[in-house]
């Protein structure tokens, strides 16, 4: 179940932050991982770019929650749904992608970091749905 919080209703459990941090520190495109609390991170890439990331757990991350995250945290570059029992809507994935914001699970984020435009990365399931709906 997602961790309940009065202030921020869907941050991830701390152990998942630890998992995310360890995966990011091991990634060959990431040189620095700065935690700012409540699941918000600033990553620095080998190219010198910074990536503002929000890690969250919610059963299904949708467009309204994307707006809520932006309102609370400012402009994000990536949102990571960091739990096996949680996910996102394809509509939200498209909405984020149109805004040049990546919406991923952690495995896809690891792969996306190897791309020049990480927000564009789609897994096979995303691709299939996007193609079916004429979004590609």
């Amino acid at each position, binding site marked *: *179940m997602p961790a*309940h919080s009065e202030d921020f209703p869907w941050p991830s459990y701390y152990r998942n932050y630890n998992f995310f941090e360890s995966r990011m520190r091991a990634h060959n495109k990431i040189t620095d991982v700065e935690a700012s609390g409540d699941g918000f991170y600033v990553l620095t890439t080998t190219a010198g770019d910074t990536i503002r990331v929000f890690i969250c757990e*919610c059963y*299904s991350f*949708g*467009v*309204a929650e994307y*707006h809520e995250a932006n309102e609370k945290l400012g402009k994000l570059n990536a949102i990571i749904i960091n739990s096996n029992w949680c996910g996102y*809507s394809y509509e939200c994935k498209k909405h984020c992608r149109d805004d040049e914001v990546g919406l991923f699970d952690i495995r896809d984020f690891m792969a996306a970091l190897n791309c020049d435009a990480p927000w564009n990365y789609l897994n096979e399931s995303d691709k299939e749905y996007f193609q079916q709906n004429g979004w590609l």
Partner: protein
Amino acid sequence: MCVQVYGFGSYFEGTKQCNDIDLLLIHQDTSISSCKFVLRCKTELVALVPKLDISILSRTEAESLSFKEQAEVVAIGNICGTNFESDTRDIATKVLSF
């Protein structure tokens, strides 16, 4: 503009000790106005009911994910803009007395 409110999870299955109360809010579409309205509903409900964990999806998002079917949700009621205060209070009362 109206939002449909559903309950799901252990609280609505009658489990006596629950860490949280899961609600699903389904709103009209992914327009800014619809998103703002459903977020207003969320803010109000969180203020009225302790330990709420709220998921939010538009109608099409919920349909594409089959969320209602998979989570086996229980219909609780609607919150409409015209009766916002009374609708949210009614929903809160229904949730707490479930």
